[in-house]
């Protein structure tokens, strides 16, 4: 067991856990004030329900050998997951690190259906989704499953986390339907400082997400750290130009979004590409995400917080560009197209396509099944009043007066 690796992985796990509250602020600020608590709760609650499910059975389904498609139950209830080595760190630490990934992936989906999905239905959906969609996909890519066998490169979760959540978000937005009054100018963010705070904290935590995926305190972790710093910088530059070209002014929301898109795009590539490639990857990734976001805004699809543009498209772009920029002399694993291995790009595309199909189909089935038991939407008058009051009995920004204790 390596103490430096363990120290780093302890830190990384904490950093990634912080990303879920960070996401809560990012999403919460983009929503309207009458729905901010509900929006943030959708992230926070994942820490509880998905966290527990991961420990009880999710980890086992993802990381035991099982078949090529899913693991088995030998690690259920963390049996056999103790302080013994898993690589160079304690096994249970690896389990915890992976758990923080599952938690945030589930929470990402919420961005597509904020301000109208019934909280109980959402809770049921992400709980089942974590076990039935996330765990198998994690198994395919990281748990020794078929995509790993194929040689797909996904350093920290471009497909497992972002394409996966992005497609689920698309399906959820379609099935749950759009908000009352969409599209309308009154559906604007209520607290852009929160959005910036969230983006900043996400970037900070992402160093754990990407550099921690090296599972060691070594050169590859440093590579992943540096690419995680540079790719979003590249995205931010290009996005600012896109904003200025389109509407004459760069926006704070655009800045926050660009940072997230860049981080998403470098996630699969972090430990596989060079720092200069990371800047290029980040810069390139700004374009398809910006485009899809613009198209979505004009469409009838109410993917409220642009999860598809940021995570779905960003993750897919990053996964494909990993197949372009991967450099074996740096990563010790494989080369991409630019370094004489065009086959990698095909493998990457296969992985992306497989996750799109599986996540799309399974998310649809889950939503439909849950919808038979619990209505997916809050009722219309609740949506109108605001989900904070109606789903949680709370107001985020209480103004003085008008309350009294009930006797």
């Amino acid at each position, binding site marked *: 067991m390596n103490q430096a690796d363990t120290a780093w992985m302890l830190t990384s796990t904490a950093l990634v856990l912080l990303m879920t509250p960070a996401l809560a602020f990012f999403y919460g600020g983009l929503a309207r004030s009458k729905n901010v608590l509900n929006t943030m709760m959708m992230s926070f609650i994942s820490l509880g329900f998905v966290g527990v499910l991961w420990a009880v059975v999710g980890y086992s389904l993802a990381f035991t050998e099982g078949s090529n498609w899913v693991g088995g139950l030998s690690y259920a209830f963390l049996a056999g997951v103790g302080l013994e080595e898993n690589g160079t760190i304690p096994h249970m630490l690896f389990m915890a690190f992976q758990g923080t990934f599952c938690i945030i992936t589930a929470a990402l989906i919420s961005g597509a259906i904020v301000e109208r999905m019934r909280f109980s239905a959402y809770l049921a959906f992400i709980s089942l989704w974590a076990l039935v969609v996330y765990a198998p996909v994690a198994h395919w890519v990281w748990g020794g499953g078929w995509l790993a066998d194929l040689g797909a490169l996904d350093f920290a979760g471009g497909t497992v986390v972002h394409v996966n959540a992005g497609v689920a978000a698309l399906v959820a937005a379609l099935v749950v339907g759009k908000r009352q009054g969409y599209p309308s100018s009154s559906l604007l963010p209520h607290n852009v400082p929160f959005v910036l705070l969230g983006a900043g904290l996400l970037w900070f935590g992402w160093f754990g997400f990407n550099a921690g995926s090296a599972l060691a305190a070594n050169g590859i972790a440093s590579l992943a750290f540096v690419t995680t710093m540079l790719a979003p910088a590249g995205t931010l530059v290009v996005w600012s130009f896109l904003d200025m070209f*389109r*509407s004459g*002014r760069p926006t704070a*929301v655009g800045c926050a979004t660009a940072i997230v898109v860049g981080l998403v795009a470098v996630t699969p590539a972090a430990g596989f590409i060079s720092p200069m490639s990371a800047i290029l990857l980040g810069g390139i990734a700004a374009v398809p995400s*910006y485009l899809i976001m*613009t198209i979505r805004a004009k469409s009838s699809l109410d993917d409220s917080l642009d999860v598809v543009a940021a995570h779905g498209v960003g993750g897919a772009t990053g996964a494909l560009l990993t197949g372009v920029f991967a450099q074996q002399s740096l990563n010790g694993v494989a080369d991409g197209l630019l370094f004489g291995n065009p086959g990698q790009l095909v493998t990457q595309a296969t992985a992306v396509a497989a996750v799109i199909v599986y996540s799309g189909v399974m998310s649809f089935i889950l939503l439909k099944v849950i919808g038979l038991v619990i209505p997916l939407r809050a009722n219309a008058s609740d949506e109108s009043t605001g989900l904070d009051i109606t789903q949680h009995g709370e107001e985020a920004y209480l103004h003085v007066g008008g309350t009294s204790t009930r006797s």
Partner: protein
Amino acid sequence: MKLIKSIIRPNKVDDVKDALAKLNIAGMTVTEVRGHGKQKGHTAIYRGKEYNVSLLPKMEIEVVVPDSIADEAIKAIVEAARTGEIGDGRVFVLPVLESYRIRTGEQES
């Protein structure tokens, strides 16, 4: 007594307060409001899409003054709040029937 209700630019509140203080009018109520008269709104951008924001932030100041100084007060407010551009605001004057001080319960005249 008259209730003088002024809707002015937010950055003119201090000027109006100072002008009223010179007339020994210290009591007032200030509210943040949104609205417009002839002023055109501004364009907001969210995720690449443009929106027209027509309700603009203003401040509403209410003071209750004896009839004898009402005209002076109105003149002071108008001059302090004026910039000469569209959007300077309005002053409305309403009659006040009765006024009571809560601390003492007495009626003011």
